[in-house]
Structure formats: C-alpha cells, structure tokens
C-alpha cells in the first residue's frame, strides 16, 4: 500500500478472536493543529495510533539555495523566514557564521543589542509554544493570554527594528540600528511586569489537573533516546540533559551573563514526558527575564556595528556556528569560495530532528495525544523544511 510515496508495511498483533481493521488517516497539511503545514499519515486502530508517519516538504522554500544567489548581506532577510516564530536567533546565526568566516569582531554594544533582541524573541517564541500547547489540548484561554504578552514584546521589537515578525535586525558585524531612546526603560518595565505573569500562567493552566493528566507520562523520551534521536534545545533539556549552547559552546556575551539552564525533573510524571518539555519552556522564560535584566542593566556605550565592506568577500573556508535558538541548537554551516556569494549554506534546525522522533513516539498513543506531542515538541513547520 502506498500513501504519498511512503511505503508502509506494518506488522500488527491481533488479539485472539477479535479482528479489527487498521485505518489510515491523513492528518494535514490543512489540519487545524498541525502548526503550519505539517502532514502525518496516521495508521490508527480506532483511537489508538499504531504509527504516525511525518511527511515533510510542504513549506520548502529553498532558503539554503537562495543564499548562494543573493550574497552574504542580501541573505539576512531570508534568514528571518527560516523560523519566523523566533527570527532573531536565525539572524544571529547567519551573522555569526559570516563574522567567523571573515574574522570580524562585533562591538560590545552590538552584542548586547543582539542578546536583548534574542531573549525577547525567545520569550515571544516560548509564549506561542506554551499557548498553542494549551490550545491543542483544548484550552483556548492560555493562548490568548500568552499572545497578549507577546504583543508587548512585538511592540518592543518593532521599536527596535521596525518589524514585528521578520525582523531583519542584525547585520554582519553587528546590528542594523542602535536601541531607540527610552527602550531600556520600557523593556525593563516589561520584564518586571512579565515575570510574575509566568506564575500566573502556571496557576491558570500548568497545574490544572486535566492539563497535567493530558501531558504527564505522554510520549516519554529518556535521555539516551533524546541524544540518539538528536533532539536539541528544550526538548533535550526536558529529558534531563543539561545542554544549552549558550553555556556549553558560549558565544556572544552569554558567558558574562548569569543564568541557569532549566531541565526536566519529571515533577508530575516520568522524566522526559511532554509535561517536562512544557515546563522547561515555562522556566526558560524566567531565565530569559533574568538575562534581559542583566543585559538591559549592563549595556555598554559605543557603536553597534563594526566596519564591514559593502561587498563582503570572506576568504575561502568553511565554518559551522551554533546558536541556541528557541527550538534549540541551530547550526549554520557556510562554505565560502572567496567570492561575494556563499558556495554552500546548510542550516541545521531543532524542529527537523523533533519531527523525526514523532514516528517513534506515536506508537500506542491516542490520536488526541499526537497533537499534544507535536505541541510539546514545539514543531514549527518552516523550520522543518526551510
């Protein structure tokens, strides 16, 4: 039997005397809870899934190929589209790769601006993630409340770079614009007001009995499995592995800033279940607030961008840089051949590996759990396909 080019052969154990037929369900790409255009071919036995096979490629935009045609500076706006939910970190990844290629030193104020923008972006992205987790489980209120706070972040970032979603804020060698007057005050105000709200979200939804029941002990990923399946970011930390690029492969000014890496503790179920992944995101927002407070307080004077020639021609060579994006370790592999265009770019994203593990996790879950698993792995379709 062939479904959209995927050959599926499934062995099935039949209980004695009871014969049921397997059902092939097509979930997506226009299903309401597939976060963009994901598609799953679900082999289900009634409500119980035997297997959910991810089918990717519906949002492929050849971003990597485009980089070979538009040059180093020109590619920056495209990086926004790699993961439009947290575009700042993608900006930073590309900028850092180019800076490493050409050995450019970013001014300290520029680095601070980047950190502030990235952490605001991380909070915004995690807010969407926890909000949609609630929505996929049927609670709509947390989603709107999360988006209400995200709106304030969007306003702040709009002040910073004029855009609310695809920022195009960073440049090779620094940032496009300095922080506007009064921004530090407004951003600090936001941080002070937002941090207690995290506890309120916890009271509203995280500790809700039904919510915990839906997430705890669902789709358990033990630490070894998480590493074997190459999970990154909050998904990996949810399994109890303390790995954060900001700490372990330090970049930018993160070594100067004090913050913890929250990991899953299995507080309501088993270590590495969906609830742990969810709570890691909740706790990470608190840590981002901590980072923001320090970065906003300690922002130095000076230029925000280094002198970079208009025709950017890095020496031949190849680099691989990592940034801790909202969905984890984002790798940028860039090969330069000495011309104004990269010879090859490859982007390694967190959602891609998270997408792969779903097939393994889905065995034996209910159909309703599939959406919870997608949400708890925080899969964003554009990041899967690029």
């Amino acid at each position, binding site marked *: 039997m062939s479904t959209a080019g995927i050959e599926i052969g499934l062995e099935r154990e039949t209980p004695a005397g009871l014969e049921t037929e397997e*059902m092939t*369900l097509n979930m997506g790409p226009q*299903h*309401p*809870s597939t976060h963009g255009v994901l598609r799953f071919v679900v082999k289900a036995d*009634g*409500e119980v899934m035997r297997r959910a096979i991810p089918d990717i490629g519906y949002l492929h935009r050849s971003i990597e190929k485009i980089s070979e045609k538009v040059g180093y500076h020109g590619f920056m706006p495209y990086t926004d589209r790699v993961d439009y939910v947290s575009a700042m970190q993608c900006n930073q990844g590309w900028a850092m790769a180019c800076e490493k290629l050409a050995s450019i030193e970013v001014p300290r104020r520029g680095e601070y601006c980047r950190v502030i923008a990235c952490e605001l972006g991380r909070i915004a992205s995690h807010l969407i993630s926890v909000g949609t987790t*609630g*929505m*996929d*489980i*049927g*609670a*709509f*209120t947390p*989603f*709107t*409340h999360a988006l*209400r706070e995200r*709106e*304030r972040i969007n*306003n702040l970032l709009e002040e910073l770079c004029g855009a609310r979603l695809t920022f195009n804020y960073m440049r090779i060698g620094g940032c496009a614009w300095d922080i506007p007057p009064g921004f530090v005050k*407004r951003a600090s*105000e*936001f941080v002070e*007001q937002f941090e*207690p*709200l995290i506890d*309120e979200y916890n009271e509203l*939804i995280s500790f*809700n009995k*039904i*919510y915990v*029941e*839906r997430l705890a002990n669902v789709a358990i990923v033990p630490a070894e499995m998480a590493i074997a399946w190459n999970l990154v970011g909050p998904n990996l930390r949810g399994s109890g592995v303390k790995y954060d690029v900001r700490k372990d492969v330090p970049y930018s000014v993160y070594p100067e800033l004090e913050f913890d890496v929250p990991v899953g503790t299995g507080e309501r179920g088993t270590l590495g279940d969906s609830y742990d992944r969810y709570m890691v995101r909740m706790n990470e927002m608190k840590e981002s607030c901590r980072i923001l407070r320090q970065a906003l307080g300690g922002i130095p004077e000076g230029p925000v961008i280094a002198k970079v020639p208009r025709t950017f021609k890095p020496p031949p060579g190849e680099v691989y840089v990592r940034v801790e994006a909202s969905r984890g370790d984002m790798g940028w592999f860039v090969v330069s051949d000495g011309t104004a265009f990269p010879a090859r770019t490859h982007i390694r994203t967190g959602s891609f590996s998270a997408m792969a593990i779903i097939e393994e996790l889905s065995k034996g879950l*209910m*159909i*309703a*759990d599939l*959406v919870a698993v997608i949400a708890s792995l925080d899969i964003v379709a554009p990041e899967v396909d690029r």
Partner: protein
Amino acid sequence: MQQLADSLLQTGFLQGVPTEAGYALVIAFFAFVLLNFIMLIAGVTSWLERRVWARIQSRVGPNRVGPQGVIQWLADGIKNIMKEDIVPAEADRPLFKAAPYLAMMGFFATFAVIPFGDGLVVADLNVGVLYITAVTALVVVGILMAGWASNNKWALLGGIRSAAQIISYEIPAGIAVITVVLFTGSLSMQTIIRAQGWAPWDWFLFANPFLCIASFIFFVSALAEGNRTPFDLPEAESELVAGAFTEYSGLRNLLFFLVEWGNLYVIGALYTTMFLGGWQIPPITEQPVIQGVLQFATFFAKSYFLVFVAMWIRGTLPRVRVDQLMTLCWKYLVPITFANLIGAMIWFVLFPNGLAIMRFAMFALGVAVTIYFFSRILFHLRRARPRLRLNPIS
C-alpha cells in the same frame, strides 16, 4: 396547553372546524411559537457565549451588529442560510441531509416539558424527566449519523466518540435524576419544582448532602452529554478538525450549532428544575400575569446563570482525552452515583420529611464556599491589576 386549546374551542374561536383539526391547529401554532423561541434562545446563547468567552480571554468579541453585538447571531444565521449547501460526492446523501434535522428534533422535543412557569409549560408529562432523558438520546443518533454519512474518517471518529460519550454519561445523569425522583416521588417536572420552595434552603441543592452530590454529578454528566468543554471530544477542533460536523456547511452546520447552544440552555433548565427550585418565587403578588412574568424571569435567570457557568468552564478547562473521559465516567461517576443513591435512600428512610437543620447547614456551607471562592477571585484580580493594563502598549 390542552386547557388553552379547549378554551379556544369552547369560545368559538375555531367555529366550524372539527375538534381534532382544531387541536392540530393549536398544536402547530404553539410548535411554531416555541420553535422561534428556541431559535432566539440558541441565538442569544451563541452571542452570549462568544462575548463571555472573549472577556475571559481578554478579547472583545462580536460587538458590531446591534448594541454590544447582540444580534450578531442573526447576521450569522443569514450568512449561513445564504451559503452553498455542499454535500460531499461520496457521502450518503439521504443520511447526510437527515442528520441535522434528527439532532435538531431530539433537542427541540425537550422543550415540550420544560416548565417556564406555573402554567407555562407545553405539556406537563407525568414522565417528564424520563422523557427528556429519552429524547436527548436522539441527538446522538443525529451526530452518529452525521459522522457516518460524511464518509470522512475524522467525522466518523467524532461520531463514534459522541455515541460512546453520550451513552456512557446517560447513566450517571440518569441515576442523579433518580436521586431527585426518590425525594419527590414523581417524574413530572412541575411536581419536582413544587416539591421545592422559593428560598434557597428549600431547594433540593441544599436539602441534604446526597442531593448536593447528585447535583454536581448531574451537571458534569450533562456537560458531557451536551458535548461541552471539558468533554467536547466529538468536535474537538484541535484533534478531529470539526469532528462529526467536518463536512457540513451552511444551514446544516448551523443547525448542529443550534443544537449545541440550545442544549446548553436545556442543561441549565433541567438543573434549575431539579435542584434550584425552578420558577418558584416568593409570594409577593396574587396577580396571575405578574406572577407568570416573575416566574418566567426567575426560571430564565437561574438557567442562564448555569449557562454562564458552563461557558466559564469552557473558558477555563482543557479537554480530556477519550480514555480519561471513559475512566471518569465508569470508574468514578457511576460508582459514586450508585453509592450516593443508596445513601439518599437511607436518608429518606431516616428523615422522610427532611431535616430542617441540615437544610440550613448546607445552605450556610454553600454561602461560605461562594464567599471563599469570590474572595480568591478578588485576591487574584487585585494582584494582577497593576500589571495587567488594558492597553498593551506600555
């Protein structure tokens, strides 16, 4: 209603018409009036739900059509009527077309016995409660039919879920109803109301602990039967697209939603009848018209309060999973209701005329719980107010 028909016939209003045809005419007329009344209720409930839900979610909600958007439902209805009526090519056409009307019928028939006032009831059947339990089961047939006829696997899953859920939850709901019937000795809705008084401590909710437990179980089961959050699995948007109604569009889809919102009111009305004293009002006037209006208003206010509670729950709770839904029903609710029923029987043997002190104690407890609840809300509101500005632009 029969008296009304008789009096109309006697006064010669229907001169020259055979008696049976006269009855039929009167019945048809009242059915038409009731149908419109139900449409109004369902429509206003839909508007109310959207507004309440929006406020809970810090949104605005529909506020454009009419004052505060109160006739938004009319605009939506007109829009839906004018939409193309799509029947999927592979669908089972007759079943697909019949399903919404069947669901509608099941819900419409319940209104026949809902007592809006002392004399304001279409038919005070002596098996009223049983009748409601029976006819609401027709809704399941409609939804299951819709799920099957759509020839869509998501719809089928929704239909099966609905059938499993509603049939399961009929049991705790039915036994909770029996607990009430035990104390009234009658299945008639009017008798149940007359067994209670206008004062809160005369309500069955506070009569004794067993009835109080039964009331909560009934409400939870009724939410499940009405496909309301946290039990809205048959049309779980994030899981099954739109469940059994996935393939429906236009008027047919609207009818299903009408059933859903109308059912919400039926839940409130049933609960009001059985536990909140129905239309009972304090004896302040002898004027029958004013009395009728007051009774109607009381009944309406009480049932809409419960509708509001259901909306509140919808805005607060996530959805349970299928297995959890069944676990809740069969492992918890059914044993608890049975134990509760036995407890109620013992209570009835011990105190056949009720225990006044218990009534007041239960009422005081209820008041205390309510005060504590609202003090918690006030506490959270005060805590949140400095941070939550209405204007998100800081």
